[in-house]
């Protein structure tokens, strides 16, 4: 199966999700490469870091697509186009990749803009140009409109985004519910979805399953300390601190119990986490054999509260 293909290969009719044999027939001199996901992830991370140097508000949409909120940096450049060029240039220089960039007043319009001149394009859609540029496009370009929605819209005679705009709100709502209402606003250039930077993990934790049931507070504490060491190390690595500590234990018979404690302030301090974990351990149902112990630290924050006393 073809995962993806270059623009050159596309000219021969090769498409994603096409069987390899068919692709080979269409373009016998094409070069076939195995999927190297670790490499792609690595490059994707580099790209993400590069984009973040332009704006802290970067939302990764897929391995090779991202949204940037440029509202607060646009004034540092003579024009939006110049800003787009600067980003493209850095990507080309540092990653040896070509990138298509669309700049506009919301995510929908920006996405449409980025698709207009592939590969290596740079398109700016000003609010005043929205109707002229976007409305003639096929309705499949509307975000959230998949195969089935598109099919039903076509059955109403709609082909372009402009055709969808002509449909009354009530019709869209009765057909697609809330999603229909969103479509109604999107085709009018009203897209309020914010650029959501990659969220922090909700919690950082580690679990240990024992080869046999363990009993006795002393032994359990030793294993718990090992779990806490890992959690503290992970927190430190990510530069995070957490305010809630949850202890999870699976008892013999596969019943799981959790105990939680909320601290005054976020911490990543191993000694404190250990102390809290021990307290939570003592709150488990007594004298029950334990099969698994886990500790998770939640309510994470990257801001580190400094302390007066060690």
């Amino acid at each position: 199966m073809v995962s993806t293909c270059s623009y050159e290969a596309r000219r021969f009719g090769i498409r994603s999700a096409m069987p390899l044999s068919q692709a080979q027939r269409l373009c016998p001199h094409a070069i076939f490469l195995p999927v190297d996901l670790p490499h792609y992830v690595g490059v994707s991370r580099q790209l993400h870091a590069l984009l973040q140097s332009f704006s802290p508000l970067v939302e990764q949409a897929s391995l090779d697509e991202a949204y940037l909120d440029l509202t607060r940096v646009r004034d540092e450049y003579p024009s939006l186009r110049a800003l787009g060029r600067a980003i493209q240039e850095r990507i080309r220089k540092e990653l040896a990749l070509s990138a298509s960039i669309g700049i506009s007043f919301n995510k929908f319009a920006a996405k449409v803009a980025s698709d207009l001149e592939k590969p290596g394009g740079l398109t700016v859609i000003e609010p005043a140009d929205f109707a002229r540029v976007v409305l003639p496009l096929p309705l499949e370009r509307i975000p959230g409109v998949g195969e089935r929605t598109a099919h039903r819209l076509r059955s109403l005679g709609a082909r372009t985004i402009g055709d969808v705009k002509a449909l009354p709100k009530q019709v869209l709502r009765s057909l697609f519910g809330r999603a229909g209402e969103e479509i109604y606003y999107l085709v009018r250039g009203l897209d309020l979805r914010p650029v959501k930077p990659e969220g922090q993990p909700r919690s950082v934790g580690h679990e240990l399953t024992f080869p046999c049931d363990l009993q006795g507070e002393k032994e359990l504490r030793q294993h718990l300390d090992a779990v806490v060491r890992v959690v503290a190390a992970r927190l430190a690595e990510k530069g995070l601190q957490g305010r809630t500590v949850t202890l999870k234990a699976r008892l013999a018979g596969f019943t799981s119990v959790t105990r939680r404690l909320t601290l005054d302030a976020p911490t990543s301090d191993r000694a404190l986490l250990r102390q809290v974990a021990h307290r939570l351990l003592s709150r488990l149902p007594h004298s029950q054999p334990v099969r698994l112990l886990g500790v998770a630290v939640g309510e994470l924050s990257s801001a580190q509260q400094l302390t007066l006393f060690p």
Partner: protein
Amino acid sequence: MRFSCPREVLYQGLQTVQRAVPSRSTMPILSGILLEVRQGFLRLVATDLELGIEVLLPVEVEAEGRTVLEARYLSEIVRRLPEGAPVAVEVEEGGGSAQLKAARVKYALRVMSAEDYPELPQLEGERLWKAKESDLRRMIRETSFAVAVEETRPFLTGVLLEMRGGEVAMAATDTSRLAVSKRGTLPGELEERLIVPVRSLNEVSRNLDEEGEREVLVSWTSSQIQFKLPSLRLVSRLIDGQFPNYQQVIPSNYAVRLEVSRGELLSAIERVSVLAQGGTSVVQVDVKDGGIVLSAESEVGRAEEEVAAAVEGEAMEISFNSRFLTDVLRVLECGAVGLEFTGQYSPAVVKPLGDPAYQYIVMPIRLR
């Protein structure tokens, strides 16, 4: 035992002692309130063995005696009695129930044995601090909010009561901030460091008047402390442990000093921190010529507000947990505060202007 009194008198007394009744206890007798009629007074006592409260109420005494009644029912009954109605309570010698009458309602309420009720210790030794009511209330108010909530270090869940060199100070810390209020005086050379559970102090404070002139007699042993007013006595357990040596973290100099209106700063922080991050609400203070700029931001957006301030020293950017600032600004009553910063990652001090008796030290936040 037989007495009568206006409903309001009994109601007030029950309200006060009831706060020491444990919600759950392995000792059933503690779910009761001790009633003792003696020498023209009704004495009410409740305790959970950590905190005990006793009040003396003037009542019409017809026969002396003592009994224990279930706190829950007694309070509920008295609360519902018609206002202004005289209440009569009677327990026959050796009887199994108490008769309670008011207006046209009658209750017969099961009694528990007064012999089983743990008596509050009387702490009357030489170790005594005669505190002024309003000062004591203020010291509690100015420090109790800064204690640690978690129980991992129990000695931080209390307020330090420190007597030294003729002065009495209260100090509380959760390790990120420290509140010190030094408003008491004490004749003699007494030196003492006691850690009082914050809950006990809050109960003391509830019974003190902001502008009261009464004398509160504070006395203690190595494990308990007593606060005594003419008709009220609270006895609390002390917390074991070594309170941190707080003096050494109070900065003696500063790099920047600001004078700013307390009210303006408080409301500006509250406005800006609406957009601060969920977990720890971080507000950044940007010191400039002629004022400061407060800002906060999160995924949702960014807020910024300028606050006029008299600035002395260099420019600095420093971030705090906004709650650590609003807590202290709410508690103070002065018009203006002095803010002293020693560095971006080192302690900051909040002081009420013209009032050397109070200091609040807070550590900043390091952003990554």
